[in-house]
């Protein structure tokens, strides 16, 4: 059976060809993670989960590890290198002291992340002191400058590829705001000067340097000592940049992780506000379903990839059709033919821009006015100076007056009405939680909305409504089963996690598949607390009286027919009996790294 493997991860109506769900791979990203490994990184801690302190070095490593795991799923064409400085050992092409480039077999220093890289990096902390070692690289009386060396090595790693096709970035993790603090006089000035010059040269090549500072509870990270000059912050950025001291570790981690992603614009669009007033907006996909990557068919004998050739055959004559065929729709007893040009002409009903039609109170946007994930829009003055100013003015008015904008978005795939909902920025100690801007929500047309709730009342009687007591009991229940700090970022997708755990295990030829946890199951323990049980019982009694069991039985039982029970058993047994090592030995699992 040639089922599309992605089928299992989507519901029927998702269209995999829809450009909407696809991520562009047109621009690659090359990243060098530059991690300070000085003793200070190992001595300094910040309070983490469960009041346990975590050392800065560990925080950096786990952030990178996490980002690598996301990257191999979402953006596996991006290339990375991991480089430590202030190390005892050295390993780099330039043979510079105090710099160690971490790598694994079958991989260039700057390359796509592999399963092995992820796995070995995950346990680097165990062997770090033994094999790489931590040691201050800038000490009085020595001409060594490990920061300078590190930048040089990073620059050399990023020599690959053109700046036109790739974003190049250096992400610098450190907790030392004054790396030359131990030096005096001319030596200090000299080193500062050469290091800044090196950084400037790097930036002139189009490579950006980003600082990810780690901070202690009692101490501020003073960016203006050196790094503001090094990474080229101006005063406005500066105020925004400095994270407050005393941040919680989770916040810091969160913030670091966010900064590691670069924004990708999906589209630049023109927004017609009124006649003669059109501004420029960039659109971003902040929320999109992540699905496992496309499958590649392999020849099971050679493990070489297969190419798929599609041919169109005329059913009447059996001959091959070369030219793109016309389409037809049977209608009124005949086949009405359309050329592809005609079809695209039919769909072209607008200019492809976003056109403002008016405003409505927020309450007009109903829960059922939704079709797809929203798209974020943010203004840009790049082409039209003044865009941001109008956008911000409208944004503020809309927030204040509690209105959303209705606009027509005339894209080629599905021109449609959209709601633009303004959101104010939300920041916490951990940084930005919600960016300022507008969210474009795709609105349904009349034929997209169904009225299934109206199909059943077949009688003359009114529908039953809950009485006061029942509502009160329900309210008591709601209070008992409350998730106070629920956030939508709470759960990992268990199916996706499982899929990647399996892939990683197979790719690394491991015998065991690591356990994945399904975080989405209900908190049975919490639900079994006496107070909760009592609230549920009271609600049940108020609605069902004593008849709950009999009323609910007939449906539940009849549903599990013989066939489905059998199917379940087979599936359970299959999983139990599977022996991975055995399968691998018998050659049923074919493992090979493809280029």
């Amino acid at each position, binding site marked *: 059976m040639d089922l599309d493997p992605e089928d*299992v991860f989507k519901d029927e109506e998702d269209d995999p060809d829809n450009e909407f769900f696809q991520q562009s791979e047109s621009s690659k990203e090359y990243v060098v993670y530059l991690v300070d490994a000085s003793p200070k990184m190992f001595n300094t801690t910040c309070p983490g989960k469960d009041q346990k302190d975590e050392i800065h070095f560990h925080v950096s490593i786990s952030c990178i590890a996490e980002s690598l795991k996301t990257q191999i799923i979402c953006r596996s064409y991006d290339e990375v290198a991991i480089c430590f400085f202030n190390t005892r050992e050295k390993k780099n092409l330039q043979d510079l002291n105090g710099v160690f480039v971490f790598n694994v077999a079958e991989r260039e220093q700057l390359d796509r992340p592999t399963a092995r890289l992820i796995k070995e990096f995950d346990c680097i902390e165990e062997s770090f002191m033994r094999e790489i070692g931590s040691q201050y690289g800038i000490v009085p009386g020595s001409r060594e400058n490990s920061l300078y060396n590190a930048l040089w090595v990073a620059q050399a790693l990023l020599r690959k590829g053109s700046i036109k096709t790739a974003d190049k970035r250096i992400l610098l993790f450190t907790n030392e705001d004054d790396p030359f603090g131990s030096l005096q006089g001319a030596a200090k000035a000299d080193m500062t000067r050469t290091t800044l010059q090196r950084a400037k040269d790097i930036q002139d090549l189009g490579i950006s340097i980003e600082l990810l500072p780690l901070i202690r509870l009692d101490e501020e990270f003073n960016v203006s000592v050196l790094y503001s000059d090094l990474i080229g912050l101006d005063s406005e950025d500066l105020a925004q940049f400095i994270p407050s001291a005393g941040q919680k570790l989770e916040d810091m981690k969160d913030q670091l992780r966010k900064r590691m992603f670069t924004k990708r614009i999906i589209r630049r669009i023109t927004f017609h506000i*009124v*006649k003669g007033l059109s501004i420029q907006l960039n659109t971003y996909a902040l929320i999109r379903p992540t699905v496992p990557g496309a499958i590649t068919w392999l020849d099971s004998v050679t493990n070489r990839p297969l190419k798929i050739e599609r041919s169109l055959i005329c059913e009447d004559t059996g001959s091959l059709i070369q030219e793109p065929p016309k389409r037809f729709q049977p209608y*009124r007893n005949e086949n009405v033919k359309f050329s592809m040009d005609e079809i695209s002409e039919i769909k072209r009903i607008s200019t492809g821009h976003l056109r403002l*039609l008016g405003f409505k109170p927020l309450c007009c946007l109903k829960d059922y006015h939704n*079709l797809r994930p929203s798209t974020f829009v943010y203004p840009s003055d790049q082409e039209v100076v*003044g865009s941001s100013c109008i956008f911000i003015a409208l944004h503020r008015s809309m927030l204040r007056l509690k209105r959303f904008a209705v606009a027509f978005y005339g894209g080629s795939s599905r021109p449609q009405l959209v709601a633009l909902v303004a959101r104010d920025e939300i920041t916490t100690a951990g940084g930005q939680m919600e960016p300022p801007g507008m969210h474009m929500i795709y609105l349904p047309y009349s034929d997209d909305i169904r009225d299934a709730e109206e199909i059943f009342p077949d009688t003359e009687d009114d529908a039953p409504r809950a009485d006061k007591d029942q509502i009160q009991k329900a309210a008591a229940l709601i209070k008992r089963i409350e998730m106070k700090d629920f956030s939508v970022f709470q759960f990992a997708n268990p199916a996706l996690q499982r899929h990647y755990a399996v892939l990683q295990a197979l790719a690394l030829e491991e015998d065991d598949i690591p356990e994945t946890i399904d975080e989405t199951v*209900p908190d049975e323990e919490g639900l079994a607390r006496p107070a909760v049980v009592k609230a549920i019982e009271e609600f049940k009694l108020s609605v069902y009286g004593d008849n709950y069991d009999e009323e609910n039985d007939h449906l539940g039982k009849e549903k599990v027919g013989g066939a489905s029970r059998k199917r379940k058993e087979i599936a359970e047994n299959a999983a139990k009996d599977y022996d991975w090592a055995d399968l691998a030995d018998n050659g049923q699992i074919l493992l090979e790294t493809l280029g």
Partner: protein
Amino acid sequence: MARNKEKLVLLLDVGPSMHGVLPEVEKVCSMLVEKKLIFNKDDEVGVVVFGTEETNNELMDEVGGYENIVVLQDIKVVDGDLIDILKKLPRGTVDGDFLDAIVVGMDMLIKKYKGIYKGKKRLCLITNAIHPTKDSLEGSKEDQVGTLAVQMTAQGMKMESIVVRGILSQDANKRIMDENDRLLSIFSKKTRSRTVYVDSPISLLGALKTRRVTPVTVFRGHLELSQQMKIKVWVYKKTQEEKFPTLKKYSEKAPSTSKFATHQVMVDYEYKSVDDSSTVVPPEQRIKGYRYGPQVVPISDAERDAVKFKPEKGVKLLGFTDASNIIRHYYMKDVYLFIAEPGNTRAILAVSAIARAMKEMNKVAILRCVWRQGQQNVVVGVLTPNISQNNKIPDSFYFNVLPFIEDVREYQFPSFNSFPASWLPNEQQQMAADEFVQMLNLAPSGKEEALLPEFTPNPVLERFYHHLELKSKQPDAAVPPLDETLKRITEPDLELDFENKSVLDSLCKHFELKENSKLKKSARRLLPEKPSGSNGEDGNGNVSDARAVDSIGQEPVVKIEKIGDLTPVQDFEVMMTRRDNPEWVGKAIREMRDKILSLLTNSHGGDNYLVAVECIIALRKGCILEQEPGPYNNLMRYLYRYCQEKEISTFPKLLASMDVTLISKSEAVDSNFTDDEARRFLDKIKPEPKD
């Protein structure tokens, strides 16, 4: 699937007060049949019009009465003729009685299907319900309607009433309207009927669901609050995109004359080795590989099945949380509807109690759902209460899918407050924006909300079915232009813009946009698309543009850039003849239209009317010359309504006396009006003596 067929009778009011919207009624009804011809070929449809001069129906023959009602088409399986009938509805001459029409329609359904057919039977009434219904012989009208309602339910019929009101219907006697509304509401209360009120042509096109979709449950089973309490629910889709039809590929290999040719195309896939494209790899030798970074990991289906994620079917409550914790833009998908198991009173009560408590407390529920056994993923989503406004319909919930961690990209954006002061709006600018947002209101209180999704048709699909119908008659028919009514979905509403002209102008005045001069030329995209400003102040950029073009055009005529106040007709004519840029014609027409409207609204005691009529005549001539009837005809229809609303009678009189008609088909092929209709517009526009 005989039970799945629908028997439908359309009851269409064609009386004089409906003439203005009959083009829309024709469009929406023929679309309904066009879609049935594709998706529900076995459905049967009958057509009844009322408000006609003539009378032709069985009830009149049998019992007398029921005058001015014509059965245009007996109930029959849908076919092309039906579309032709619906596209040319007769224009009636008397005010119709919708109750009589309902009786005639019911009678048709009963006679045809009594006892034999138990499937879907439906009446669809389109009227403005502003004329009195006849008194019944015995009992009150309410009693009569009550009897009809009982009969309707007994016969298993549904009724859908679309009542056209507001600017679409003349000011009518309020007492009669209220009575009619009351009568219609009896149907809604006592039968499976629904009544919707529309007051714009767009919502008339959107109000009638033209595609009949049989709802299918996504899930039937328990909503588990906990192990101890489960509520039986059914889950449906509340919204689902109606897609552009998937057209089959057509093969032209077989001769088109061949009777037996299917013209179908088979798509064949061959899997070949990358290294050796001569060998085809058989299915059993193929294995799926999954990418993990640069690696491709082969996994057979058996292996995958053994280790994949296999959750149990079920819908479980994770907990409740504040509605404010779920921001609207996190909704990932189209919407689901949770209803209690139909007929299960306890379940309906349980859903009702929770929904109402959630609403009161402003809470939502978080659920984990596995819709089917064997599904390999779970969804976590948000359940929100839907408190029913209709006594007959139980309370229910809406549900939408929320993102997992992997689905969220946490990009950071600069805070607006961090922008340089020059990028931020000053006080005046903010005031102009506030006023703009306030005034350009699509949902003013007391009026129908414009562009309500429920009533907004999909313009692309409308265009496709229109083109399909054209092509079935003439295979090489060109793609028709977008329907003028539907353009209002894609473009700002001129009336609204016009009403708020000062606000719009003030916005333009307060904000200045500049092309970024530092950008390379190739990167500029906005310049040519910048719409031309019609009223001077904001059009500076365009003027210089136009001059540049002129110097190449080398035409010695005086360059008229805009229509001035002194000689609007001449300015218009000069602009229309400019050939140095094809945009001039559009600009001239637009400016002329704006000029006419401003003449009319700024007229004191009719002092501008004569100039306005001159302008209209010039515009008419120009539009015929350019074969662009749309802008002119729309303007005229708008003026007609405008005058009606403002009770201006002198201007229409003036127009009538000058014989200014709509542009008809014979004058410009794209017009929707026959000569007769174009002329009748004049009759309509002449103010009728009010009684």
